[in-house]
């Protein structure tokens, strides 16, 4: 197989799914780092975001790309409400109970989507989209936009965390919550902000998943394991880790087809997770080990 074929049939799809995993993993790693638990409803939050965008496209005849930011905003709001209603009262109890609650929330989100939109696969727009050649690289416009938007979102978030007051407050809370409180950082406000970011990015992940393949109600849940593996691979609490982890897992998944039957693509994320826990639990960028 030529190098170009390798890139077109494996690397590019790998980078696309990697970007999707990265967007989901960022939210997961932020919640892991700042709120200190595994959020099992993250995949289904992505599903919700994707379907909300679908609803906007259907009912308001918007272009999917216009629906995306609106869906992100709505999902961000839903995330804040979910926290308030289902997770907040468990704050003082052992964190594992919140993890359990999030599993229940995952089921609830999924069933809402299933009731409203049904379980048949859907698409944002019909018709076949051809790939254009860019000097031998075959790319569809939606793939370019996916990659560009994901990169843009990541850069924006990293700048936010690095340079703004609230970004630093988030990093402080992730680093040392008691000291952050001593410095006057408002725990509640940072929590809300974390959910806004996590919700918006999850919606984007779901949307890109839907627009590059198709929408189905289990898609978020199916990607959950890969997102968690990406977050842990990169280092829990490290945004740059989630990004790198996501891309690595996306690529490995696609490349695994060269050696494994394609049905086992999903298993590669699991294998990577187990390997990382065995070899280097703090991940690539030395995150927390819970």
């Amino acid at each position, binding site marked *: 197989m030529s190098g170009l074929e390798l890139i077109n049939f494996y690397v590019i799809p790998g980078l696309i799914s990697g970007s999707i995993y990265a967007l989901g993993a960022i939210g997961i790693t932020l919640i892991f780092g700042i709120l200190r638990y595994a959020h099992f409803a993250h995949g289904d939050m992505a599903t919700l975001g994707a379907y909300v965008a679908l609803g906007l496209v259907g009912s308001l005849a918007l272009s999917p790309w216009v629906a995306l930011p609106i869906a992100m905003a709505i999902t961000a709001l839903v995330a804040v409400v979910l926290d308030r209603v289902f997770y907040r009262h468990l704050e003082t109890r052992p964190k594992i109970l919140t993890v359990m609650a999030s599993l229940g929330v995952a089921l609830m989100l999924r069933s809402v989507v299933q009731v409203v939109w049904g379980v048949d696969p859907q698409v944002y727009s019909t018709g076949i989209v051809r790939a254009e050649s860019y000097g031998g690289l075959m790319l569809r416009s939606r793939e370019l936009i996916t990659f560009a938007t994901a990169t843009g979102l990541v850069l924006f978030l990293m700048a936010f965390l690095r340079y703004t007051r609230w970004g*630093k*407050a988030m990093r*402080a809370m992730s680093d040392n919550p008691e*000291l952050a409180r001593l410095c*006057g950082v408002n725990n509640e406000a940072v929590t809300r902000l974390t959910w806004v970011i996590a919700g918006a990015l999850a919606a984007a992940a779901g949307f890109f998943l839907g627009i590059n393949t198709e929408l189905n109600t289990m898609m978020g849940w199916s990607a959950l394991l890969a997102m968690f593996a990406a977050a842990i691979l990169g280092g829990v609490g490290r945004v740059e880790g989630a990004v790198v982890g996501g891309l690595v897992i996306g690529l490995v998944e696609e490349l695994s087809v060269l050696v494994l039957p394609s049905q086992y693509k999903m298993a590669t994320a699991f294998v990577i997770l187990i390997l990382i826990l065995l070899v280097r639990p703090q991940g690539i960028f030395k995150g927390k080990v819970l």
Partner: protein
Amino acid sequence: MNPVLVMHQVRGGYGDADILHGVSLTVNPKEIVVIVGPNGAGKSTAMKAVFGLVKIRDGAILFEGEEITGWKPDAIVRRGISYVPQVKNVFAEMTVHENLEMGAFLAKSVKAEAFERIYTLFPDLKAKRNALAGSLSGGQRQMVAMGRALMLNPRLLLLDEPTAGLSPKYMEQIFRICRDVRDTGVAILLVEQHAKQALAFCDRGYVLATGSNRHEGTGQELLNDPEIAQMFLGG
């Protein structure tokens, strides 16, 4: 001269049991006051009580004449008291400069002057301003912790065992810095395990045992007291 801090017969603890059984002390402006005592004497608890981290069941705490008993820590920070905990007192994943920024989080805007003040007090830190706080040595980390606490110009600084686990060289440095900080007009109340050295450099001291006052006096007086020497000034 009005005292900066007055603790009057404070009784309280964390849970249902009392750790403090009527502790009283005073800190005057431009003073370094040290609390020493055997393990379990309630030294750290007495200091944490000032910062609102302890349940107070009796007595009063006054800061600059105003009663702050029962206030929450963030209100106390705004009022002008800063606290440096003994452990986990820096943001290990953030740079020295960012740690200082967090110290000034509550300020509307942070002037360069505030940073300069800290860097003048701690020249070592200026060179390492972009290093991650977690990568520094114990003594430098303690400096970051203190610098963070000084960003908002507190009138009273609370230090919980600042020299714990430090080499004698850094211990000396910390004490020297405390004196420099005091000379800029900040009163300091600190808890110390290294009683002898602490009493040697402080202005006044209190000896606590089992949650109550035992002795008080100037550092020198306490050092010379044979009873105290016997009690625990072994090291």
